[in-house]
């Protein structure tokens, strides 16, 4: 299936909430603070917003509850939840809704205080006992979600000869970028040996192969390109998007090393009329080091099985020739349970030339790729500077 849609929207404001280890905060407050900052960038007010999208907020009617706290009465709302990739999918939903005239200005917003709450565990979420997870995964003792990614890492090493050192390079490069980002949570030096000698969690993955557990969140404001041109801001155009889901639980994954990123990326590139060679900066979900290798291959930046050699030799470190996860990513900058929104924030800053010490010179096209669940969902967004 190939989409015939042509996006006609832009991102006109982005912001992070308070990040890292917050105190005396809750998710609604943090979302409100990020929303206000993102709207201020765009020269807009809360009363201009008529579309609200969020995910990962712990009520059944997430977007409704968030809109209420913000005093917004939206004509379009989405609580679509595909895990960490939700916000890339929200960009797609927002573009379609704005294009259809259902709303004019969409706020995509997320925040979590999971570090403050100590709410993330390796047991995974508690689900109803009729689910596949409860019936056929929990009895095995697999850690969630890290165990599923460890299975994929082991399979990748088996099938393609990928090494532990190559996986570690993803974490090392992320740390080197984080050292250029004053907002990054972990900035002390990290070596490949450090990653390999970290305590194992779910072999072959160690603690240092795993993303941070931090508080944090952010907001993205979208409107039509026509309206964006009237605002006092530097719009970043939405060029293409795609999504795909292959499974929810790892026991039904068709293939652990060929993921939904393939179809998601292919759709996004086709919609944008671009190819991987056109991407100047890539923000790719790094829940675990293996997630990045799989995504690089499946998005077409290298051949299947060659992710390990692709990231070697400093290619993805600062000053390498493939700028990847320039904020420091979920591995070193911030991972508030769902990273996808912060991927968009960093990409927009890079395309506006506002990324300070970590700015990729002349970046004009960016890719944001979210992964949700246990390699379950993918959503890809291509963005371009309109100047």
């Amino acid at each position, binding site marked *: 299936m190939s989409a015939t849609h042509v996006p006609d929207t832009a991102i006109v404001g982005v912001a992070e909430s308070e990040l890292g280890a917050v105190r005396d905060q809750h998710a609604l407050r943090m979302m409100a603070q990020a929303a206000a900052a993102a709207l201020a960038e765009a020269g807009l007010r809360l009363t201009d917003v008529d579309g609200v999208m969020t995910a990962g907020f712990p009520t059944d009617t997430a977007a409704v509850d968030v809109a209420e706290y913000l005093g917004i009465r939206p004509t379009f709302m989405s609580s679509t939840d595909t895990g960490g990739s939700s916000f890339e999918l929200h960009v797609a939903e927002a573009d379609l809704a704005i294009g259809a005239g259902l709303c004019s200005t969409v706020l995509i917003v997320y925040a979590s205080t999971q570090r403050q709450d100590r709410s993330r565990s390796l047991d995974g979420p508690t689900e109803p006992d009729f689910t596949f997870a409860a019936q056929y995964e929990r009895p095995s003792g697999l850690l969630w979600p890290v165990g599923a990614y460890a299975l994929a890492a082991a*399979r990748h090493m088996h099938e393609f000869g990928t090494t532990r050192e190559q996986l570690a390079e993803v974490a090392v490069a992320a740390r080197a970028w984080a050292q250029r980002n004053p907002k990054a949570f972990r900035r002390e030096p990290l070596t490949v040996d450090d990653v390999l000698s970290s305590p194992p969690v*779910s072999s072959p993955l160690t603690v240092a192969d795993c993303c941070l557990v931090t508080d944090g969140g952010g907001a993205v404001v979208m409107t039509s390109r026509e309206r964006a041109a009237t605002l006092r801001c530097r719009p970043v155009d939405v060029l293409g998007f795609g999504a795909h889901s292959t499974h929810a639980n790892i026991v039904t994954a068709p293939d652990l090393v060929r993921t939904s990123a393939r179809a998601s990326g292919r759709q996004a590139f086709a919609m944008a009329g671009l190819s991987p060679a056109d991407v100047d900066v890539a923000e790719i979900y790094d829940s675990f080091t293996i997630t990045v290798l799989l995504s690089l291959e499946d998005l077409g930046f290298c051949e299947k099985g060659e992710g390990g050699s692709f990231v070697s030799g400093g290619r993805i470190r600062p000053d390498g020739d493939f700028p990847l996860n320039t904020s420091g990513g979920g591995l070193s900058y911030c991972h508030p349970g769902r990273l996808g929104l912060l991927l968009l924030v960093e990409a927009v800053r890079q395309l506006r030339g506002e990324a300070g010490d970590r700015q990729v010179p002349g970046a004009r096209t960016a890719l944001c790729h979210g992964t949700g669940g246990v390699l379950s969902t993918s959503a890809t967004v291509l963005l371009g500077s309109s100047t």
Partner: protein
Amino acid sequence: VSDVDARPYREALERGELVIQRCEACGTLQFPPRVICVACGGTPGWTAVGGRGRVYAATICHRPGAPWLADDVPYMVALVDLDEGVRLLARMHCECSELEVIGRPVRAVVARDARGEPTVGFELEDAAG
């Protein structure tokens, strides 16, 4: 009521047997079990399987996935492709590393886990003893 899809599977485990679904209309084998066959929409029945297969992927858990597993750490969990063509996630009883075990032939062992629940696990075909 909530485990109605799994009841025949669990009852078989109680007898020390492993069963999976086989569609009565199109013959497609299916795991995990559902009320319909996802290939044709037909009604699945049940069939015993031999329990032999190969390890597709494996990991060693260095922290317990649940409180009742605290005394078992470290332990291995594997995705096993049964010869019949379906994939199971289960404990893998062996002393080798997660990389050494991938691709090797295994057989199912039904035993009670630390909670007293009958659970399927796997061991190497060529394991000594």
